[in-house]
């Protein structure tokens, strides 16, 4: 029996990856949920907005690297991030001007907004492919590991290694800061409160003299910031490829819906629920069990609940169960 090694295996293959992936999903889901809450539609273009923001950030990173700027052990992309956010915010605001505003004026049904956002998604998608190409781009620099599997083994003398990548630590750190800022903004500032009021009851908010265009603009800017941050963190942790961001849309929506659409707290919880269920349900627990159980009890089989083929199915099973039994999500969101 060796609980120490069992714990390390668990941390290395389940907890740490799940935590980082969950934080990335949570940031993405926050953007989706915000647009849903305030503007009242499901923004399909969110995944590609993330790709767009990441692309701008990558260009800025290259430029900075060309100038010889670096951020020590942290990736240069962090310095480039504000620039990426600014450009993405401008593009998203322009899209709102050119596209969404018209539909808001005619008070289009949410489903029309949804279709429109799918159109925006395709345009964004094409733009990204056009500007940066379709290949995988690794733009992380600086130190790769906080602690690598080999270092861990040498340091502790344990049989199993624990690896924590810089990008994983960074993802969690930045996500916490971003969420804290968002909540402070929504709950403490005047603009944030007006946003919540607008989301709560549009007519009442208008009667109280809240400027709707301003609320909409601020929402888009925050959404752009969240999308870019999530996209860059994700790209740093894995790699940038236009196609994967499009794919990311599914788990992000699953996370937002599970948590309760329109509820920021729910989006965060949803992100972690989806991430951990994907990793934990399909994880083969044999090695953990082999360490944790007394000698001779080690299992023959893999101790895998579901094959990894069904990873997607897990998040969607959760999604369906939640929609059936608690349509407003784990935290109270909107059911429409």
């Amino acid at each position, binding site marked *: 029996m060796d609980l120490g090694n069992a714990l390390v295996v668990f941390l*290395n*293959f*389940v907890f740490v*990856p*799940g935590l980082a*992936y969950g934080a*990335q999903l949570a940031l993405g889901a926050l953007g989706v949920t915000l647009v849903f809450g305030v503007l009242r539609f499901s923004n399909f273009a969110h995944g590609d907005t993330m790709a767009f923001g990441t692309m701008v950030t990558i260009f800025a990173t290259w430029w900075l690297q060309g100038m010889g700027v670096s951020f020590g052990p942290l990736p240069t992309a962090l310095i480039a991030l504000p620039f990426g956010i600014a450009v993405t915010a401008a593009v998203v605001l322009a899209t709102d001007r050119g596209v969404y505003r018209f539909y808001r004026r005619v008070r289009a049904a949410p489903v029309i907004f949804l279709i429109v956002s799918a159109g925006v998604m395709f345009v964004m998608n094409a733009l990204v*492919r056009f500007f940066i190409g*379709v*290949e*995988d781009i*690794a733009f992380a620099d600086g130190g*790769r*590991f906080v602690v*690598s*599997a*080999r270092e861990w*083994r040498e340091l502790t003398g344990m049989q199993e*290694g624990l*690896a924590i*990548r810089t990008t994983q630590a960074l993802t969690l750190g930045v996500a916490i800061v971003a969420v804290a800022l968002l909540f402070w903004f929504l709950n403490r500032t005047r603009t944030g409160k007006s946003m919540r009021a607008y989301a709560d009851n549009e007519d009442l908010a208008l009667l109280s003299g809240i400027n709707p265009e301003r609320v909409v603009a601020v929402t888009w800017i925050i959404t752009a910031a969240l999308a870019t941050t999530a996209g860059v963190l*994700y790209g740093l942790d*894995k*790699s940038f*490829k236009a*196609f*994967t961001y499009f*794919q*990311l849309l599914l*788990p992000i929506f699953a996370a937002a819906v599970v948590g309760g659409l329109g509820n920021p707290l729910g989006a965060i919880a949803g992100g972690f629920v989806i*991430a951990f269920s*994907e*990793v934990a349900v*399909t*994880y*083969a*627990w*044999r*090695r*953990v069990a082999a360490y944790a159980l007394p000698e001779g009890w080690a299992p023959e089989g*893999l*101790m*895998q609940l579901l*094959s*990894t*083929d069904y*990873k*997607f199915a897990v998040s969607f099973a959760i999604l369906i169960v939640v929609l059936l039994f608690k349509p407003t999500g784990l935290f109270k969101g909107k059911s429409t």
Partner: protein
Amino acid sequence: MKKLLLASAAMALAGAASAQEVKIGVLLGFTGPLEALAPNMAAGAELAIAEVTAAGGILGGTKVTAVRGDSTCVDAAAATTAAERLVTSDRVAAIMGADCSGVTRAVLQNVARPNGILMISPSATSPALTTEESDGLFFRTSPSDARQGVVMAEIIKSRGLDTVAVTYVNNDYGKGLADSFQAAFEAVGGKVTLNAAHEDQKADYSAEVGALAAAGGQALVVAGYVGSGTNIVRNALDTGAFDLFVFPDGMVSQELEDRLGPDINGSFGQNPASAGEGAAKYHEMAKAAGYDGTSPFSAEAYDAAALIMFAMQAANSTDAKVFKDKVLDVANAPGEKILPGELARGLEILKAGGEIDYQGATDVELVNGREAAGSYREIEFRDGKLVVVGYR
């Protein structure tokens, strides 16, 4: 309005001229998982077509042109639509494509067979396509993965490894390769600890790597595409799950070296390629034309397009029902050997009633009545570089 009229007049003229023109569809996944490879494949096919047209065309002066279509690699419905457009609207005489095994099968059954259009795929390698019903309209210049599975098992065994874990991309290609490999590896006394699928282009592979690590093994076989495959390898390295990897054809590429090079020293693999002078010659021609000829399946695409045109010339017809019977004749012995860059000579021999044995860039030799026999090169990473260590 004037412009529009002019344009339509020009179109009408072009239509009249097309009596002396035959079109070949280039149906590849310009978007989707293979979008990184498709441009170099299309360039290969178009190079062959340009070479023939520059030499005066086929059938005594018929120009050959290429029309591109997007197979998307993964979406069978989209690929079928694209192929249908090529056939009914562009009126292509044959299709160079499709690329991925799944969409190739869909296009063959839904478009090629009903319309009597011949297709030669440069890169569909699923074993299922060997026996797929085709009315003699389907060929491929890439070998079946049944063969690659055997080669890979031999290579792994020859390196003294007995247990491996396998992760394959969840489609016709990955599944076909993984299964044929497992059968071949177990036949030579090896053991596959886990044979698990991964979805291509997924957000995150922590779960897959976790399961593979739990199953264990001396090496990890990554039967996938280079984009996602690289991420899996990276993840496995980072978590310390595996440090030795085996790369089949979808993974062997410059990109793999660029992104992982020094971290995967000692890892090895194989991809269809031949040592012949045809390959070297093709790489030079590609360089001169401004694209990367060493990119996977680019040479196969060149050969596929060349075979189509030779078959047309040999049959003296652009009707697939007629020239489909000539593909094997021009691809295999007997006859004069033809290398890349010598397409004009081959056409002349055929015109004079002679026979050719097209070698091309990949030493073309079609077996089972439709597919390349397949010679593979064994590669290894040494000092962060991809090195060729032999051919099998």
